[in-house]
């Protein structure tokens, strides 16, 4: 069995206006997980729990085999953590920060840091306060990547980056995974990034995990079927159809459990299956969230 980089088991935590309920997650070593959810879904809270910054009310948290938050000091030596709101010293240069981080982490890879400076087009002599948002994010990523941590936990690492910078940063994440003992968890709204580089995907909404599985399985199960209804015939009610919209004689059915058998069942009911379309992660994400919200209401 492969070792787990991250394991959350039935984690709960209540806040006055928000609660994480029964959150379970597993990330195998050598894999990259995209953590996707709408604003306020609980992504950052989950990440803070992973980092030992918040103590869960109940449940178990293991990161790199170490229980959190009890052994967070040991775990953090091997974790690289980047969030949007992380502050660098405005009145110091990137070079000063590099010296600072190097003094704390003995595994600092100076040669790799130089490569990254070049790849990310960063000038080490520039003051942090003069940097734009995107450049500051790249500086933060450099400070973390050059430590060569075994686990990267990144909260919205690509938000606010221009397309070129995003491309560079994603390529660098994949570069990390060249070593199959290193893992990445990153949260994002950008489903295109997630679809491109993730091995597994977890959807969270309103404090609960909606779905968590390997990406290929995800994309394989979801399909949109375009159906032509014969005169006067109704659409059979199938539990696999999670969203149905009809316009005149054309019906669009969204399913999360597509098989050819499903198609055959419609055909047997006298319905013409006009097209079966694969869905992008973005479409699938929206459908998934809407579906889970209606389920929870009923």
């Amino acid at each position, binding site marked *: 069995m492969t070792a787990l980089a991250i394991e959350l088991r039935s984690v709960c935590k209540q806040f006055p206006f928000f609660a994480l309920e029964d959150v379970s997650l597993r990330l195998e070593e*050598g*894999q990259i997980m995209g953590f996707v959810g709408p604003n306020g879904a609980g992504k950052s809270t989950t990440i803070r729990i992973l980092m030992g910054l918040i103590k869960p009310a109940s449940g178990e948290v293991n990161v790199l085999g170490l229980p959190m938050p009890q052994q967070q000091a040991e775990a953090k030596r091997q974790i690289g953590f980047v969030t949007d709101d992380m502050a660098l010293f405005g009145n110091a240069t990137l070079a000063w920060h590099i010296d600072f981080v190097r003094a704390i982490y003995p595994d600092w890879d100076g040669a790799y840091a130089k490569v990254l400076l070049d790849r990310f087009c960063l000038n080490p002599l520039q003051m942090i306060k003069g940097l734009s948002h995107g450049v500051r994010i790249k500086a933060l990523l450099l400070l973390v990547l050059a430590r060569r941590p075994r686990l990267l936990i990144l909260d919205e690492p690509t938000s606010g980056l221009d397309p070129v910078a995003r491309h560079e940063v*994603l390529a660098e994440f994949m570069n990390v*995974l*060249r070593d199959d003992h290193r893992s990445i968890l990153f949260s994002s709204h950008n489903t295109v990034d997630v679809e*491109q*580089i993730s*091995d597994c995907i977890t959807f969270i909404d309103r404090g609960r995990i909606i779905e968590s599985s*390997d990406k*290929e399985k995800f994309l394989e199960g979801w399909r949109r079927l375009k159906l032509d209804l014969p005169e006067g015939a109704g659409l059979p009610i199938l539990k696999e159809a999670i969203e149905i919209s009809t316009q005149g004689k054309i019906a669009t059915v969204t399913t999360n459990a597509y098989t050819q058998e499903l198609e055959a069942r419609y055909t047997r009911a006298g319905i013409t299956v006009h097209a079966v379309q694969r869905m992008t992660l973005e479409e699938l994400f929206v459908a998934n969230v809407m579906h889970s919200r209606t389920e929870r209401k009923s």
Partner: protein
Amino acid sequence: MYLQIMEQIRHRVAIGDWKPGQEIPSIRALAVALSISVITVKRAYLELEHEGVISTRQGRGSFISEMVDLGESLRKQELERHLVAAVETAQLMGLSEKDLEARLRNMQQKIKGSKR
């Protein structure tokens, strides 16, 4: 996305860029090179293995199959896919077989004409 990778690999074999028996990049190496997740590349390799285009030897890497005329048969497969699409579209439009044949001939003439 794995379909795109399969397409790219088939294309490389069809044009002779990757020759029979040649070793191809490991799953992880190709994933890094393309900035695409490991699982997607793994899926593409598995499907290609299923089709007999590549073979993976445990612990030794993946190779293009030694099959004779692999490039040729891949090109045939591609042509067949286009033909199937053409026939299906023709059926949707209610074209007869004769009409489709005539259109194919016309297209050949047109392309020949424009190349001259």
